[in-house]
């Protein structure tokens, strides 16, 4: 690990039927920071997520996590190493309770096998309790406690996004990949979510954030990487990115939005 870089990709390339979705893409994320990945739709941001988390295998390049190569590992192995994620549209276990959803985070850290579960051996019971307490802790901290016995599909959309975050955090990850965490939230929910995410580095988490809402990106990020057509086109602090002519051309535009912000 150099310069406190915890997660990096080196020249990853991913093609779909000839279409290059990610093209020799590098990103390096420093520990305990919020690093945002922005860019137009179809720029390849979600594909980068899927490559890092092992859902896709890159055709070229490497993914390094704490100096370890992740290529070839399965998603569940990558999670166990300490990278958890959320999805753009919450992918909850809809017909299970919120508590059960959050307990999914603890699954990878459990060891009890089939027979010890059948027999209810002491170490299995201890482990179950630990998993449940871990989940309950995050439900409390995200103000979802009163929903713990509700089925996930029955809680409001904003709470579903929070629950997905609770589930990811319950996995005790070192790095969190958040795919548009504020998309579809109303203004007050957005505030809650932003405050919570902004607090994560202090608790020891590193965050890689994909987000369209500039409000959120500019407010939270320590560093921003901009991508377009699968390539990195710029990288810098929010202030640098905000005034970068290349980024304005490709992504931000010169709409009214900027007039308000600039004024």
């Amino acid at each position, binding site marked *: 690990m150099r310069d406190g870089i915890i997660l990096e990709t080196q020249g990853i390339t991913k093609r779909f039927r000839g279409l290059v979705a990610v093209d020799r893409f590098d990103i390096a994320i420093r520990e305990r920071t919020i690093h945002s990945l922005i860019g137009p739709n*179809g720029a390849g941001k979600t594909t980068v997520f899927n490559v890092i988390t092992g859902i896709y295998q890159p055709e070229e390049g490497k993914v390094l996590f704490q100096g370890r190569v992740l290529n070839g590992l399965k998603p569940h192995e990558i999670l166990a190493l300490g990278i958890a994620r959320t999805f753009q549209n919450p992918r909850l276990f809809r017909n299970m309770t919120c508590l059960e959803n959050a307990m999914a985070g603890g699954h990878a850290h459990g060891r009890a096998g089939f027979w010890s579960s059948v027999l209810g051996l002491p170490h299995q019971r201890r482990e179950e309790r630990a998993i449940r307490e871990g989940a309950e802790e995050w439900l409390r901290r995200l103000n979802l406690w009163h929903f713990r016995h509700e089925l996930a599909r029955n809680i409001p*959309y904003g709470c579903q996004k929070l629950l997905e975050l609770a589930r990811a955090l319950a996995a005790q990850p070192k790095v969190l990949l958040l795919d548009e965490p504020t*998309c579809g*939230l109303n*203004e007050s929910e957005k505030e809650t979510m932003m405050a919570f995410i902004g607090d994560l580095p202090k608790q020891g988490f590193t965050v890689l954030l994909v987000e369209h809402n500039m409000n959120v990106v500019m407010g939270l990020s320590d560093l921003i990487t901009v991508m377009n057509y699968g390539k990195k086109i710029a990288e810098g602090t929010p202030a640098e990115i905000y005034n970068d002519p290349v980024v304005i051309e490709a992504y931000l535009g010169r709409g009214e939005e900027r007039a*308000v912000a600039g004024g």
Partner: protein
Amino acid sequence: MLLQVDNVSVAYGAVEALKRVSLAVSGAEIVAVLGANGAGKTTLLKAISGLVPVKSGAIRYNGRELHKLPAHLIARLGVVHIPEGRRVFATLTVEENLNLGGYGCPKEEVQRAKDRVFQLFPVLRERRRQLAGTLSGGEQQMLAIGRGLMRSPKLMLLDEPSLGLAPLLVDQVFATIEQINKEGVPILIVEQNARKALSIANQAHILEVGRIVLSGPARELAADARVREAYLGGAAYERRLRAKESREA
């Protein structure tokens, strides 16, 4: 009155998604409905176009009672609903998508409409033989709008045309919408991007948890302090940006 939504309620099971909502679209104007996710905006459009059943109340369009018609007949009346998230038919070609937009219309009319769409969006002409799923997000939105124009719409319902698009593309899409409206098509648009929507709309309504809480001319609403704070988020944004900059400096 072209479209009259009168005390409409819609329920999904036990949950009421719309509660006695009333609004109207008269001439060739743009009416915007704003609100957060889950406020019932999409449900409102789906109720008008017949995708969800109306529990009580009435929807009238040129004297016809829309709430009693199935969706495909409403579409054939010229009420064109462009759904959220683009929803192009991914494994059909661009041209097949457009042809379906004019499904049931005479052949010459479809051809004429197609030429007009290609004029408006030249990129679609280039890609007419391509599968729609291979288009970029922005191109898909153009295809979705173009597909809606195929039936020479008499009323256009637009659901979150800016959703998931980069800011630059959002500007283009809104410019297109304004242009379509200038050609005489009344538009009912539902948006989360309140600032953008208010900038092009004549009338606006604000929907909160299934109820209309505020209505009026778009310009008045844009100036309303409550609206600015709750939906435009301008003040909060500026505050944070300034704080961030001062911290960095």
